[in-house]
């Protein structure tokens, strides 16, 4: 069993300039097959989950069932094979509850073992003026572990 460890990164970069010293490699996310309980994962990464209540912008790297249970308090198997995959998810603050996440892409900074999770937000043009939180999650190959350094970039 992997060590129980949650990486909570507060490094948020809005519209950052990319590091020119990196050779950025797009890491493909794992396909979400029928065994993955998407509804339950959507519930874990939502404002209904009190775990996130006390945090601001958050990025979690979840490498096993126990870590997932720790943040969700849900015992139901969510269908992620943590021998092969790592769950990356979290939340960030957005200027309107009407904004939506457009795309999520993970880049590796070669040759260093550093990553950049780029979240592109589709800004609403017709918006309610309440500050909101957008939640996200993606499943990636388990080469990413809780010790990895991931920079969350919101665009």
């Amino acid at each position, binding site marked *: 069993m992997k060590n129980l460890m949650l990486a909570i990164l507060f490094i948020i970069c809005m519209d950052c300039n990319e590091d020119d010293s990196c050779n950025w490699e797009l890491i493909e996310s794992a396909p979400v097959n029928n065994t993955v309980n998407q509804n339950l994962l959507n519930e874990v990464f939502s404002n209904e989950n009190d775990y996130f209540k006390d945090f601001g912008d958050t990025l979690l790297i979840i490498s096993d069932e126990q870590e997932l249970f720790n943040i969700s308090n849900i015992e139901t198997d969510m269908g992620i094979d943590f021998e092969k995959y790592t769950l990356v998810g979290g939340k960030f603050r957005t200027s*309107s509850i009407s904004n939506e996440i457009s795309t999520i892409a993970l880049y590796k900074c070669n040759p260093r073992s550093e990553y950049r999770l780029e979240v592109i937000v589709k800004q609403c043009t017709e918006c*309610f*003026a309440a500050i909101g939180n957008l939640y996200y999650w993606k499943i990636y190959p388990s080469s990413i572990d809780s010790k990895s350094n991931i920079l969350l970039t919101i665009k």
Partner: protein
Amino acid sequence: MKEYLKYLLILITLNVISQNEKIQQKLEKINDKYIMKHNGVDYDINTEIITIKLKKGKNISKKYKVIRKNKFGFIDIQVPSNVVITDFANSLSIESEIDEVEYSSVGKYIDFFPNDSEITLQWYLTNINMFQAWDFAIGTPNITVSVLDSGTDWTHTDLGIGNDIYQNIHLNQGEDVWSDPNNPSTGNGLDDDNNGFIDDWKGWNYANNSNDTRTMNPHGTQVAGIVGAKTNNNRGISGLAGGNNQEGIKILPYCIGVIAPVGALIDDAIIDAVDNGANVIQMSLHVGPSNAIDTAIQYATDNDVVVVCASGNSTPAIAVQYPASNNNIISVGATDQNDTRANFSNFGNNLDIVAPGVGIHTTTLSDNYIAVDGTSFAAPQVSGVAALILSINPNLTAQEVRNIIESTAQKVGGYAYATTSGRNNGTWDDEMGYGLLNAHQAVLAAQATLAPTITIDGPSTICHDGLEAFTLSGVPSGATVVWEHSSNLDKNIPLTNNTQIVVESNLSGPYENDPFQDRSAFVRAIVNGQPVQFDFWIGTPNPEVLSGDPDPNKVYKISDDCIVYFEDAAQQLNLNTSNFQFAPHNIDDFSGSTIYGNVVPMWCITQAPYLNLIFEARMKNECGWGEWKPFTYFLQGYDPNYPGGYGFSMFSPSPEADLTVEIQEGELVKNRSIALEDFGVDAKTTKDTYSIIIVDVYGFIKYQKNGIKDKKFNIKKAQWAQGIYYIRVTNSKGDVQTKGLAIN
């Protein structure tokens, strides 16, 4: 000898102390201020006024300056300058005619602190001075705030029907009620008010074209709670204008998009809100500029509907977004707990005002509460205060409401507020607008817009001797005041100032002997050119007879009622046997003189054709009994028991109209019998016949007709000249009755 004087002083002092039993309050002097302690609270003493109560039947000495009196005998008098108030009180207390002496304290307004269980989480209420504002206004149900948003959950018990017997949701009175007030599908399926919406009892959902404004997005419920959650209902939060454990302002919800607002729906919702009686339109949204929305906003403005909108959020902040940027809208930015601009709060040239927008505790879905951020939650605070302003004065225009909100804002946060072109409501800053919303000062300013109630207070009756003070209150500061008074009064010049006049009667001689002397009096203050008058009476009022009976236009027969209703000419006394007396004269013409309150029933006993009612009446008040006032009524009468007895009356509603003559016959004339032939009456007729002749003052005949059998008939007189005419009516026996007629 010194010892003797010492004991004498002690005895004098003890005497004063015993007199001071008339003064119940104990004062302390702290830092040159007199304080009265009560239940742990220190009250400052007003050192210019002291209140006394006289012993029964005693008059106040003329050496004291009376400010006002009340009807229970308490008199406020001026403390002379350079006299210590406690010394003055002690001197009053030894006056034999004074029964009580009382200091006047300077009171304190009690800030209204609602009992709502989560109010301590509403930090923003303190920053906008809401608690002080609630002392003056808390929202009234005649004011409607339309919330154009993601929908409002009217089942939230802090907004809609809960355990309380009231709700703060607008109910469309033109629409049939739902049989289940929590189930929109239980309407009657009809558009009862023909407004284009079926069963729209609690607003309308434009997003799905239904009468259910509840949606999964809590935003609209969060906004609505800030404006109008029930206040002081022992539950949840306090809405800014949510009433005091009873109906506050009404929320009229329109859903104009669930996840995001739909621009194409906003214009329609604004127009419908105006047409459905909204006083304030609240929006916490932004969309792309639109002529349709601009036109709808102009329509709202033209109808004096206040439109409020959030300035929008961006990180970093950008310019105020649309429609808040529309000049007809009050655009609202957000501040944090330190009264500085929230970093996400959009600002710039179009920003008008700011209100707290971080950690705003409010209602949300599932009958719950939540803290939320955004200019979305600053705007409804401005809408709530606008609703309070209109609760105080619903006649204010939208521009006047806006002026009040902007001109009373707090210049907080250390920003460089400055005089700015085009900004006429005070200094302005591009990050804060006119500053932080100030609910307290706003409602005070609203109160100041109410027409000042300027009144004169004083005694309703003054007696013939002695000075009386009349006090003017409610005078705006700086107003010019000019006093006037009736000619039967003299003004006591030295005691006259802007707020008081002291007068005395100048009626000559013992006025009681002249009941016809004009004893109605007035004092009048011309305040900034507008007169305010106080009417009162000098001495004992005269009795008067109310109109109706005795009636000179009526023909009386024996034993008809001639009931006399009296009233006090000064309209001050309720007449009874202790303050009203009646004395009949020429009692041959009537009987009965028992007094029942203000009524004296009498019965006529006179013979035809005339009767005289002559009697006297008088009244009594604190000035004593007045003189007897004589009353004389010369009435028309006839004796129905006398054969041939008759009378006639006339009526002409206008100079152009016909003259109506009506003849009244005695019973024996109406019911002729053979036995009456003894009196020479024609036994073949059942009714008498009459002749009538009308002549003018020169004797020229204007009208003549004989053999009249109708007892009511009209005479055309439209072409007759103005003047006096005489009418003579003769019956078949030759009995003549004559009256005068004036055509004006």
